[in-house]
């Protein structure tokens, strides 16, 4: 049984694992931060769409199998077809609220820098917030639902990796 004080540490460790996986461009490690619940999901959308109540997203992987497909897109279907880029994610948890015995709603600011390999020039790529439903078990935490809400209404150039 976890003590209440352990929960934020376990949630933060999950978020850290998540951004490390993305910055490492390791999609299998990205997938491993999600629960294998069939309804596990990842969504990337904009604050503009959220505020307007528009359902369309930039990425809408709303089942675990679609999360698996996302890995296939990046590692197999798109491999070698786009000008690659490095990312650097920075996060700051702003809220964590229990919604049941073992689930928490977690809000986290994010900032992502992007370095396209072809220019080698680092630029701010995106800021926004993660709105996550996290399942916390004995000593681990996983995303049941992760939603990245971009501050910018616009993607610059293209986005091959999830945020």
């Amino acid at each position: 049984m976890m003590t209440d004080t352990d929960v934020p540490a376990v949630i933060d460790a999950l978020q850290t694992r998540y951004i490390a996986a993305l910055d490492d461009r390791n999609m299998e490690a990205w997938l491993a931060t999600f629960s294998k619940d069939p309804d596990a999901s990842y969504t990337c959308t904009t604050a503009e769409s959220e505020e307007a109540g528009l359902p369309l997203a930039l990425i809408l992987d709303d089942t675990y199998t679609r999360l698996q497909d996302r890995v296939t897109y990046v590692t197999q279907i798109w491999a070698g077809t786009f000008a690659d880029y490095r990312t650097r994610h920075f996060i700051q948890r702003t809220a964590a609220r229990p919604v049941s015995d073992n689930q928490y709603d977690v809000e986290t600011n994010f900032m992502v820098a992007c370095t396209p390999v072809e220019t080698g020039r680092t630029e701010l790529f995106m800021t926004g917030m993660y709105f996550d439903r996290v399942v916390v078990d004995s000593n681990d935490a996983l995303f049941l639902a992760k939603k990245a809400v971009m501050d910018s209404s616009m993607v610059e150039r293209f986005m091959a990796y999830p945020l």
Partner: protein
Amino acid sequence: METAPRGNKLRFGCPYHRWTFDSTGRLVGCPNKPGDYPDDFDRSNYPLARPTMALVHGLVMVTFSEQAPPIDVYLDGLHDSIAEVLAGDGRLRLLGYQKVLLKANWKTYADNDTYHAGLLHTAFRMLNWQGGKGYQEANARGHRLYVGELSLPESAGRLHDPSLIEHRSGGDLSRGSVSVRFFPISGMTRHLDSISIRFANPLSVDETEVHYTYFAHVDDDEKLIKHRVRQASNLLGPCGLVSMEDAAVFHRLHSGSQTPGDAVFQMGVTDEYVIPSEFGQSDESSNLPGWEYYRKVMGYEKAPAG
């Protein structure tokens, strides 16, 4: 006057002199005290600029140009194709936007956004989705129609998610992918159940902004709407399985265009002094009528034959 990207308003006010305009652009309020304005000042002489507007199958087309021709002349026979893209009758419901800032000149975007589907997209090839034939037409104003026949495989291949290749809204798969591109740059596409208008706006010589705007049909049930949202989110657009490559390639082409030399269209060109109106599915020569129209409008001399 107005900074909101979307919304509804009946009054528009300028923060400087508090001039207020109604929704038809009429100046209805203009606070002043004696001597502020000339004696013959007449509010009716100062409306907002009044665009010319036309409604085409639900699509509002607007221009501030006084030289713009009547809409039928401008579209040059494209009415039915617009209806075909916009779910048959244009009775659409907004699902949302995907907006992208392409680091490319608008001409690079305009030249390469349609004909390339069968050439570029690894996804189509790897998943064996590119089974059908297709064709392109272009009229004298440079507007283009692209029609692609789709033959869908039994399964999504190495993907688990079948929704990307499902066709649930009915209709003829021999015209499963239909695009209309208006010269110079905006366009619209219906691919399977995804209906989108690509509003494009050149921001600078190096930047083009495109708003992919997606729709469902007003008669869709909730299940079909959900399917359209999923397919539109994940198939086309700047992160879409099929289209993510587009922006990456536009940028590369734009970089290439900075090197010396001229851009030359080869694929589909059979006689370099004839500009046809019908083209194969992957012919880049479908760009030629648009640039010939551009040449005339801009008053550029044509190099003599031979």
